[in-house]
């Protein structure tokens, strides 16, 4: 009698184990399927860009065979761009604007986030929310009033205007990210630093910035992306080749009337994507989550 009960219990346990195993397997298959769709959707456009950039203008216009395959691969589009003075100028302008934008945005964001999250002054909560709300205003609403401001500063058709404008896009979100990171640092760390003899700036420089490095890197990547990829403002405010940055330079130079130089456009896109890829790969190595481990109990 008792043996039968025991056998039944074992059978029930085995059944449960099997069903759990099966559920996990289905979850795994589901994850793979979702990831496959995701990877397909995101990798197809760059693949198409690469294939087109390796084709000659004749092969592109011939419209025979599969557009996904290259019959006679060539680097002529890349070589053309690398040796093209205008493209070099766009690249250099983009690099200058981006470095300055990222630097200015990060200095402002880190200082703002530190004061808003740690100094606890009257109205700091309201200001924090206000900073984030400014990020919700779309740039397309702002570019006309900003045109007047930039015009009054005499910076129309001058890429330095972008160094002024991009931080208005980057600072609110970077500040928001940094407020989150700084808030996650235990309060006792400030107090320990205060008792050890640090002032607020020393505390920021020696404790908060190193500890919040993952957050700073995330914010830097965001500011970089905003600056490198922005299209609307340079399109609105820059109109001569010597002032243009990559995003507008490519379309204004490689599209002449109704003639699209697809091979060169695609090659330019790939060349323009290089710095973000390199920077992401480089910074991701340092993006080590859980740097605060060991600071406090946990």
């Amino acid at each position, binding site marked *: 009698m008792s043996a039968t009960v025991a056998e039944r219990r074992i059978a029930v346990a085995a059944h449960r184990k099997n069903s759990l195993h099966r559920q996990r397997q289905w979850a795994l298959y589901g994850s793979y399927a979702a990831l496959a769709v995701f990877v397909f959707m995101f990798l197809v456009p760059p693949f198409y860009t690469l294939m087109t950039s390796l084709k000659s203008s004749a092969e592109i216009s011939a419209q025979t065979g599969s557009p996904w395959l290259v019959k006679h691969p060539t680097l002529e589009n890349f070589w053309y761009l690398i040796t093209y003075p205008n493209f070099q100028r766009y690249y250099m302008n983009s690099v200058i604007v981006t470095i300055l934008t990222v630097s200015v945005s990060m200095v402002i964001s880190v200082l703002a986030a530190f004061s808003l999250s740690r100094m606890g002054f009257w109205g700091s909560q309201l200001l924090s929310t206000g900073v984030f709300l400014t990020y919700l205003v779309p740039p397309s609403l702002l570019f006309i009033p900003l045109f007047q401001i930039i015009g009054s500063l005499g910076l129309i058709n001058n890429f330095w205007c972008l160094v002024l404008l991009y931080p208005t896009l980057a600072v609110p979100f970077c500040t928001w990210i940094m407020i989150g990171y700084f808030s996650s640092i235990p309060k*006792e760390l400030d107090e*320990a630093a205060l008792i050890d*003899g640090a002032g607020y700036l020393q505390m920021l420089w020696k404790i908060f910035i190193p500890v919040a490095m993952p957050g700073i890197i995330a914010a830097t990547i965001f500011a970089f992306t905003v600056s490198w990829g922005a299209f609307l403002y340079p399109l609105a405010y820059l109109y001569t080749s010597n002032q243009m940055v990559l995003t507008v330079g490519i379309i204004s130079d490689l599209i002449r009337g109704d003639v699209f130089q697809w091979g060169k456009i695609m090659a330019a896109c790939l060349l323009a994507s290089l710095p973000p890829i390199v920077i992401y790969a480089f910074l991701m190595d340092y993006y080590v989550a859980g740097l605060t481990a*060991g600071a406090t*109990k946990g």
Partner: protein
Amino acid sequence: MAEVSVRKVVKEYDGGVQAVKGIDLDIADHEFVVLVGPSGCGKSTTLRMIAGLEEITSGEIWIDGDVVNDVPPRDRDIAMVFQNYALYPHMSVFDNMAFGLKLRKFPKDEIKRRVDEAARILDIVPLLDRKPRALSGGQRQRVAMGRAIVRNPKVFLFDEPLSNLDAKLRVQMRTEIKKVHQTVRTTTVYVTHDQIEAMTLADRVVVMNHGVIEQVGTPNDLYHHPATRFVAGFIGSPAMNFMPCRVQDGANGGLDVRVSDSIIVPIPPARVDRYGKFKGKNMVLGLRPEHLFEYHEQGKPGWSRVEMLVDVVEPMGMETMVHYFVDGAPICARVDPATHAAPGEMMPLTADLNQMHLMEPDTGKVV
């Protein structure tokens, strides 16, 4: 090293909540004072006000003869050890300990000498190159103490430093802290909610409750002569038994304490005068579990036999805790493990009334 004085200090938060209600406390040079009390009693707030991490609503705090109400923490020459260590995670143990000295522009040789010496005292020399994340809880707490020691401050402040450690490590670190204090002799204010920590570490214990100081005294004072029912119940483990009772006439002109119909015990003659004026009044009898033990045929003066119905028996190896209910009040006795005790049975016990406390039920004052 310095004296610390807290004079009529009040801390009131926004909304009118008073965390500390005008306390006075004088801490002597080299003294180890422990602030103890339940959560929300104001002990940590008091410590943080001494540290300068909380502003004082009114009153004065003196350190080494100076009022420090408006002095920032870094200029108070104090060091603090936090409950959750608060080590700088990106710095090595050496850099953590040296941070305060570097900020104060100490020469490199001096920094190294001090850190090495503190590391030797705390037995963390092999850990100096490690980052905090590579340390165990106990090691992290030692580093936090090391960071305080190297500064050679006027006052050490400890804010529940052992609360995050497991029970075994807590006992070990408690001894370490005591040893460190015996070595460096710096004036220390230590906050804990653990009365055993308070009793074992302190030169003097300050018991706080609801933002006021209930009693200040040596551990022995608090144990043997509690001023209030709160202190009597807070100090000692297991807690003191409290039984509603009535003082009444006893044999030979003496006095009895009547706890229930079956428990009427004589008050020792030495205390008759003290308790005489409470004759006929309802009071509360306080008796620690260690003063309620197995029955001995040959008793001593002041020992009385009582019988209680056993509710729960908790053998602990070196002793056994036996729990009873008397007229709804839970009672605990600490008996010899060889004593027979079974739930549901009446058990004879000895009550050592030489150690009894009598309290007023409304004020809680020990009379």
